[in-house]
C-alpha cells in the first residue's frame, strides 16, 4: 500500500508513536496496598480532597511560610492503622463539580470531600449513611462545633433526613470594618450584633472625603455580583427564610416574602454609599491594604483572611462583627466541606476510620496551621495556642460558625441560586423593582422545582 519512502516513514512514525504512548501512558495507576501485617493489612482507600492541597511540602503564596504536604496526614493515618494504605486524590476548586460527578460515577474514591452534598448524591443512593458507624463506635458528635453536624444533614433515597457527611472544615460569613476610617469620621465602632440601621447610618456618615486623609471613602461594600447569600441573611435577620423542605416534593420557596422585599429595598438604598461597580464586583481593590477606602465590608468569609491581615500589618485596624441573626440568634450561610463515604467503597470500615481521623486534633490542626482551614472541633477553640493567638478574629468566627441557618440551603448548587443572584443583581442595576425581581425569582425557582418533581 505504501510504496513511497515518505508513506512508509509516516506509517512507521505512527506505529512508533503509538508504542511510545502505550509505555508513557500506562504509568497512571494508583498504588494498592501490599502491606501484609497489621489489623488493616491489604486494605486501600482513596480519599478525594478539594482545594490548594499539595502532596509535597510547599510554600504558602501569601505568608511565604513553608507548608507541610498532605503526605503528613497519610503517614499519620497509616501509622495509626497498621496495614492500611491511603491514596489521596487532590483537585482544584475550579471544575470540582464535574470532577466529583465523574469520580462518583466511576466509583473512583472511597471518601469524598463534598461541599455540594445537596446536589443529589445522597438522594440517588451514591452515599453511605453514617449513623450506623456513629452508633457502632459511640462516636461523640458533640466534639464538633455546634450546628456543624446538623448543617450537613440531607435526605437519602428514602426521603428521610440523616447524616451522610461529617464536617472537615468550616466556612461562615460575618461583617468586617475598618476602625481607622470609623475613627477618622468620629463614628462609633460597630456593636457585636449590628442592626440594619447601624449599618445604614454608619455607611451614610462615612461616604465622602475622609476628614483626616482627604481621600474619597465609601461607607459600605458588598459583592453585587453574587448577593444571594447576603440578601438571604438580611431576610433571615428580619425573621424570614428562603423557604422550607429538603425533599423536592416538600420543598417550598419564599423568595418573594415581605422580608426578602424589605431586604432587597434596603440593599438598593444602601447602594449609593458603595463604590460604583459593585454589581460587577468592582471597587474594593484597596480593601485589606493600608490605603483602604471602604468602611464596612458585608458578607465576608474567613478564607485566608487572617494571613492577609497579618501580611499587611492590619491587625489593629480591622474589626469583625456578626451578620444579621433572627430573634433565635440564627442566620447566615452554612458552608464548608464534609467528608462522605461512597456506597461503592470496598473498605467501608477503613473509610469510616478516615472520616473519624478527620475530626482528630492532629488532622484539624494540620488543616488550620498549614492551609488556614477553619477547624470544626470545639477543642481547637479552647486548647490550641495557634487559635488563641488570633483570638480577636477567631472568637467571632467561632460564634458565626455556630449560629448559621441550618441545614445547608438545598439550592446552593442548583438553579435557584443563579436565579436569586441574577434577580437581585437586576434590581441593584435598576432594571426592575425589588418586587418585580423577587416575583421573577420565585417563579423561576418554582419552575425549576416542578422540573425536579417530574
Amino acid at each position, binding site marked *: 500500500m505504501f510504496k513511497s519512502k515518505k508513506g512508509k516513514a509516516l506509517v512507521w512514525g505512527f506505529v512508533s508513536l503509538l508504542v511510545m504512548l502505550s509505555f508513557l501512558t500506562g504509568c497512571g495507576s494508583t498504588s494498592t496496598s501490599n502491606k501484609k501485617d497489621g489489623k488493616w493489612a491489604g486494605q486501600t482507600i482513596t480519599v478525594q480532597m478539594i482545594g490548594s492541597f499539595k502532596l509535597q511540602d510547599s510554600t504558602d503564596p501569601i505568608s511565604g511560610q513553608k507548608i507541610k504536604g498532605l503526605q503528613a496526614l497519610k503517614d499519620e493515618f497509616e501509622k495509626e492503622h497498621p496495614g492500611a494504605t491511603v491514596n489521596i*486524590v487532590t483537585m482544584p476548586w475550579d471544575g470540582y463539580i464535574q470532577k466529583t460527578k465523574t469520580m462518583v460515577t466511576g466509583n473512583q474514591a472511597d471518601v469524598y470531600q463534598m461541599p455540594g452534598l445537596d446536589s443529589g448524591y445522597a438522594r440517588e443512593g451514591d452515599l453511605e449513611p453514617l449513623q450506623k458507624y456513629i452508633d457502632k463506635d459511640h462516636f461523640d458528635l458533640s466534639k464538633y462545633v455546634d450546628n456543624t453536624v446538623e448543617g450537613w444533614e440531607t435526605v437519602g433515597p428514602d426521603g428521610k433526613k440523616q447524616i451522610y457527611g461529617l464536617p472537615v472544615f468550616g466556612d461562615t460569613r460575618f461583617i468586617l470594618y475598618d476602625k481607622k476610617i470609623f475613627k477618622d469620621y468620629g463614628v462609633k465602632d460597630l456593636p457585636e450584633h449590628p442592626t440594619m440601621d447601624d449599618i445604614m447610618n454608619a455607611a451614610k456618615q462615612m461616604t465622602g472625603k475622609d476628614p483626616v486623609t482627604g481621600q474619597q471613602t465609601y461607607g459600605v461594600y458588598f459583592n453585587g455580583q453574587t448577593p444571594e447569600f447576603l440578601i438571604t441573611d438580611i431576610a433571615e435577620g428580619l425573621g424570614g427564610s428562603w423557604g422550607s423542605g429538603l425533599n423536592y416534593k416538600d420543598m417550598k420557596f419564599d423568595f418573594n416574602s415581605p422580608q426578602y422585599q424589605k431586604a432587597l429595598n434596603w440593599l438598593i438604598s444602601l447602594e449609593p454609599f458603595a463604590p460604583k461597580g459593585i454589581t460587577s464586583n468592582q471597587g474594593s481593590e484597596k480593601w485589606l491594604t493600608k490605603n483602604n477606602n471602604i468602611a464596612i465590608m458585608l458578607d465576608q468569609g474567613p478564607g485566608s483572611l487572617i494571613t492577609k491581615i497579618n501580611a499587611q500589618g492590619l491587625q489593629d485596624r480591622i474589626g469583625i462583627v456578626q451578620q444579621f441573626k433572627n430573634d433565635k440568634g440564627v442566620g447566615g450561610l452554612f458552608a464548608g466541606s464534609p467528608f462522605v463515604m461512597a456506597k461503592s467503597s470496598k473498605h467501608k470500615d477503613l473509610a469510616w476510620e478516615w472520616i473519624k481521623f478527620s475530626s482528630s486534633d492532629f488532622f484539624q490542626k494540620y488543616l488550620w496551621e498549614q492551609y488556614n482551614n477553619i477547624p470544626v472541633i470545639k477543642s481547637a477553640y479552647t486548647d490550641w495556642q495557634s487559635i488563641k493567638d488570633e483570638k480577636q478574629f477567631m472568637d467571632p468566627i467561632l460564634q458565626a460558625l455556630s449560629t448559621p441557618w441550618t441545614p445547608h440551603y438545598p439550592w446552593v448548587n442548583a438553579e435557584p441560586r443563579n436565579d436569586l443572584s441574577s434577580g437581585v443583581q437586576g434590581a441593584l442595576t435598576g432594571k426592575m423593582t425589588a418586587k418585580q425581581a423577587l416575583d421573577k425569582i420565585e417563579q423561576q425557582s418554582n419552575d425549576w422545582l416542578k422540573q425536579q418533581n417530574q
Partner: protein
Amino acid sequence: MAALTQKKRFYISNLIKFVILLIGGFLLMVPFIWMISVGFSRSANVTMPFPPSLIPKDPSWFNFGIVFENGQIFRAYLNSGIVTFSSVVLGVASSLLGGYAFSKGKFKGKRLLFIVVLATLMIPMEPRLIPMYEMFNKLGMLNTFWPLILPAMVNGFGIFLCKQYFDRLPDSLRESAQIDGAKEFTIFFKIYFPLTGPIAATLVILTFIWSWNDFVWPLVILNNQNLQTIPLYLASFTQENGTSLGGLTMALATVSVIPIIILYLFLQRFIIQSIALSGLKGE
C-alpha cells in the same frame, strides 16, 4: 522640488503608519506585559496592584520560585508535551486524510457522512462528559493519557477546514496521477500532501492550543498528581480558601504560555497564508 515633496510625503505617510502600528502593537502587548508584571509582584497574592501598573512596585521572584518549587512543573510540562504532541500528530493526520476523502473521494453516503462530521461540532463538551468518561472507564483507560489523545482523531473542525482547503486544489492533479496509474494514497502523499503546508500549520497551532489549554477533560480523567498537565497544575495554585492568588496565577500563566508563543513565532507565516487560502475569514 516636486519629487522631494513626493518623497517627503511618502516618508511622512509611512511614519504615520509606523506610529499607528506601533501604538496598536503596544496596546495588544499590554495584557502580556501586565501579566508578567503581576507575576513579579510579591504582594499581588494578597491584593492585585491597584491602580494597574506595568512595572511592579515590589518586584520579586517569589511567585516564580513557587511555580518551580519541587520541580513538579517540569513533570507537568512533560505530560502536556506528550499529550499535545500526540494529539497534534494524530489530529492533523486524521483531519488531512478525512478532509481529502470528503473533498476528492467519490463514495456512497459522502454527503450524509460529512453532515455527521459537522454535527459533532454542534455538541458541546458538557453533555458528552459523562458518557465519554464511562466509555473510557469501561475500557480501563482512566488515569492514563489515552482518553486525552484518542478523541483528537475525530476533529470535525479540522476535517471541515481541510475539506475546504482541498476543494480549492484542482481535481485535474488527481486525474492526471490516476492516468499515470497512481493509487489513492500515492496521490495523497505525493501530489496533495506537499501542498498542505499552510493548512497543516494552522491545524498544528489550533490543535496545539486546544490540547495544551484543555482543562475539564484532563481534570476528570486524571487523578494521579504525577500525570497533571499544565492547566491542572496551574489551577491547583490559583486559589487558596476562596482567595484568588493573582501574583501566582500570572506567574504560572506566563510560564505556561511560552510554548504557545514559540510555536506561533515559528508558524505565523503559514497561519496567515492559510487564513487567506482556506476562507476562514469568510471570503
